[in-house]
């Protein structure tokens, strides 16, 4: 007779001392795990619910400005500081970790501060600002010490332009900066006059953005509904794109140098490939009023946009619908938004003179996590991803409480769009087949592209 029966030694399955970890043997045989699909689904549903329960995106409102915030800049070399410019000409530098003003210039400009930008390079803390007073000023927190609170510190340098400025951006590597007014002027920091004037038939230029990777490319958008790309090496325009409505802001993708996103008056954000601008790569359509500003996350995978409808939306660059919407009762029209360089926070400056700090992922919590915690978060993420198309889970993940005005406006907008579409279809039915071709959504807003 050969016989063996199961007899486990208790010592092998229990811990010797209290400081040991418990032995948890695994067996992945599916027979021991019945109803695994149903249980996994239940866990996915639970984690979706938990995500919504823990979604508290708002962190802080930084107050101090007296007028609305219309310009904002982050410093790629400094995670902590952010510079804002307000409607009464005041500039403030904020520390995000302490959530306080660390530097301010009350009368930096006469009139509105229209743009601020940091000077690249980790060594200096200089930054530039432009206002409607036709001045571009260079500031530094360390170089011009504050005399007393409430007194404007001295500038490092001042440049005088011919027209009221609308925006400014600094070159990534060279000591150059570009301002926009009725034309684009490129300045060398050592000269008092611009070294180049760039224009291609626009009235007023709304914004100018230098590409931070492909450093000689510059994009601008004007009130004549155009988006123009220039080459700094030849000081000549590359191409011009005309859309149905004008563009308010431009953001270059930090990871893909040829992609940029534009915030349009027609409530949409368009993503373009500068090599092929006859169609948008993606159209992000959820806002119900003009989009005022847009910014890429440092990974280039996400976007944040602020709108005149008093909301901020977060987007995945590959999807047409927003991933999340942020709003508060007190937040007014949003004029500038920024994604922080650590990919974890979003900043918004609005008409109500407050700078707001938000989480980039509403339910995520900062701080050190234990291994188990991290594993559980990752597991929950995976589950949600796997079951996101099951109706119950989808419903939980999608549901958002949004302001009544936005909801109403989006419903109205939906009806309008549908009726427009219906009308178009009706016209198509009664026209010759080639007379009214269907235009893809990605080409609809584009009137024309020319290149030199």
């Amino acid at each position: 007779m050969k016989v063996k029966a199961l007899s486990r030694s208790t010592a092998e399955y229990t811990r010797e001392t209290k400081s040991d970890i418990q032995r948890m043997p695994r067996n992945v045989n599916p027979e021991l795990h019945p109803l695994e699909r149903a249980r996994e689904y239940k866990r996915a549903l639970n984690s979706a619910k938990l995500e919504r329960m823990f979604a508290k995106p708002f962190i802080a409102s930084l107050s101090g400005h007296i007028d609305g915030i219309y310009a904002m800049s982050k410093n790629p070399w400094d995670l902590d500081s952010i510079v804002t410019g307000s409607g009464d000409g005041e500039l403030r530098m904020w520390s995000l970790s302490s959530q306080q003003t660390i530097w301010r210039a009350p009368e930096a400009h006469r009139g509105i501060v229209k743009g601020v930008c940091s000077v690249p390079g980790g060594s200096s803390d200089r930054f530039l600002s432009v206002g409607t007073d036709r001045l571009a000023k260079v500031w530094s927190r360390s170089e011009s010490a504050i005399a007393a609170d409430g007194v404007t510190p001295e500038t490092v340098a001042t440049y005088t332009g011919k027209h009221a400025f609308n925006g400014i951006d600094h070159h990534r590597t060279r000591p150059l900066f570009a301002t926009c007014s009725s034309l684009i002027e490129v300045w060398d920091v050592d000269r008092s006059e611009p070294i180049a004037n760039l224009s291609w038939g626009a009235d007023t230029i709304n914004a100018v953005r230098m590409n931070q990777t492909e450093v000689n490319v510059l994009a601008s958008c004007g009130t004549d509904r155009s988006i123009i790309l220039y080459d700094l090496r030849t000081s000549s325009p590359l191409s011009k794109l005309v859309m149905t409505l004008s563009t308010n802001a431009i953001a270059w993708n930090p990871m893909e140098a040829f992609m940029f996103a534009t915030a349009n008056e027609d409530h949409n954000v368009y993503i373009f490939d500068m090599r092929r601008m006859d169609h948008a790569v993606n159209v992000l359509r959820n806002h119900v009023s003009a989009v005022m500003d847009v910014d890429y996350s440092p990974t280039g995978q996400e976007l944040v946009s602020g709108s005149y409808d008093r909301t901020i939306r977060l987007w995945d660059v590959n999807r047409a619908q927003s991933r999340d919407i942020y709003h508060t009762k007190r937040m007014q029209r949003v004029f500038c938004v920024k994604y922080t360089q650590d990919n974890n926070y979003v900043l918004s400056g609005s008409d109500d003179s407050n700078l707001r700090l938000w989480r980039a992922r509403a339910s995520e919590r900062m701080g050190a996590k234990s291994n188990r915690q991290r594993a559980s978060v990752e597991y929950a993420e995976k589950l949600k991803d796997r079951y996101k198309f099951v109706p119950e889970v989808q419903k939980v993940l999608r549901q958002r409480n949004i302001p009544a005005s936005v909801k109403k406006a989006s419903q109205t907008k939906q009806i309008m769009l549908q009726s427009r579409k219906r009308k178009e279809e009706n016209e198509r039915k009664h026209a010759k087949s080639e007379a009214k071709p269907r235009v893809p959504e990605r080409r609809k807003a584009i009137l024309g592209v020319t290149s030199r």
Partner: protein
Amino acid sequence: MVIAERLEQAEARFAGGAFAKGTISRDGILDHMEASEMHSNSSEGEESEPLPRSLREKPAKSDRTDKKYVKNDKRTKAKNGDQSLDAKKKTKEPDEISKRVLSRSEKYQRGFKPQKDEEPGKVRSKKSQPKLDHARKRREAAIVDAARSEVLLAESAGFLEAEGMERTYRFTQKQLAENLDISSAGKIFDLKLNEFGPYVLDYTANGKYMLVGGRKGHLATMDWRSGKLGCEFHVRETIRDVSWLHNEGLFAVAQKKFAYIYDSTGAEVHCLQKHVEPTKLGFLPYHFLLASTGMTGSLVYQDVTEGKVAGEHRPGYGQCHVLKVNPYNAVVHMGHGNGTVTMWSPKQSQPLAKMLCHKGPVQAMAIDHSGTYMATSGLDGRLKVWDIRNFKSLHEYITMRPAQSIDISQRGLLAAGWGPNVSVWKDALATQVYEPYMKRLLPSTTISDLHFVPYDDVLGYAHSNGISSIVVPGAGEPNFDAYVANPYQTKKQRQEQEVKGLLDKLAPETIQLDPNFIGKLDPRTQTQLAREQLERERAAYLQNKAEGKYLDNEVKNKMKGRNSTAKRYARKRQSNVMDLKKLQEMERMERELQEKEAKRRKVPEEEKGALNKFYTEKRQTR
């Protein structure tokens, strides 16, 4: 207390066994294992990677090298790189091995078919195809990893082999005890409880605790391995069935009038009055539902966390004594007096399936853990094995007397208690066998209930004179998953598992014959669905028409009233405002009325007769 004494006696009987015996037999096992490994290595000599034991047993099906697979499996290759370096001889690429593992690891595939060759993408979208490919690769890698993780399993299953003229069913428990190690031998015991029998029993999911209930009201719980008594008391009324709930903290008892829930100290927690005269209990651990059937023949599901009745069904076959929960899909099977077996889900008023299994009342039932096989016994003396995926009968076994109780172990052993006998068959589900694996006779008793102990090679059975426990080598799953059922669970772990279990509690709606229906995509489009619906309706109409179910006027809804669209229109617009359209409408109606009147046959004076004075011409104008 009665049981405590008996247990002490039983322990004392086996305490004398020498440790030496255990060590000898263990060495024997080691020899055996080594031999089997040598054998498998020689059969697949070229393989460098140590494969899971179960995989090594089968010969390799294909040895072709697949270029695509080399590309696919870079991940696993990198991961297992250091392992393969350790291997002494490397004649084949690791990816070849994992390919072979993949082709043979059916157990972990869950219906997924690994792609054979480089097939062109089936999806038209260029965007989706890479995603699908990626998902497929991930899945293949997961299957290979799962199969490879078998080498980490610490324990191997028990076995009993006869040599020469021996037959396994001739071995007595005494003989086994002499050859087994001391701790296994200690699992063979008899508890003489002849006052309150016959008994019923149940084990917890981890097999650590036993619950016994005597027909005449005796209840006890114990840690049966150590012989430690949990609680013991007398309910002073009939007990028909007992069942543990999700852990050893609570148990349910089917008593004379109602079902009751007691806690581990024996205090009555609930009286479940919805369960009237219950005969059988079943617990659905992942749904936290207690199912019962009784003298009324109805099936009642009660949620033990909320106390709500989750479903109540009346099969309509009279009183019922057979109820089992299918561990694979949590469907409740009921065996009825007319020989049918019905399968139920709490939220569906009709059975999911009905099977006519026996030519007489169903006596007992057991369902295996993979949800493939069901064994039933009936008063017709048959013990039948069914494939419940397609509801087909597989084989029949004949017991001398109708089996009163049957059970299937985790590793697929089938045990039946008939009269005073217990028989255990091995491999009796997938194939027909002609002699039992083990058997035992307990003269002058009647077996009332039997259960295999989960994760152990022990069969516990209850009879008219008490409880017995015998060792059946090879019955239990040797390697437990500590997150599913842990025989060495600490109090903290039990508490944590309880909370996790409650968080993952499944809704009663998720119980279906196919438990994997959740999250599956219905590939039909909306138009396809609509068309199918239309076709179904049309077919039903044509069939009804062919059967003459419709008279002509039934099909055509011909109302004889004076309602018409025009009249309704006119009525709706009754206002002081007379617009052109309304006038036109009224004129038209007037005209029609007159035309109709003109068409009518004039009744001559003479036909009017005696009732002349009541006859008036129909009003001509409005």
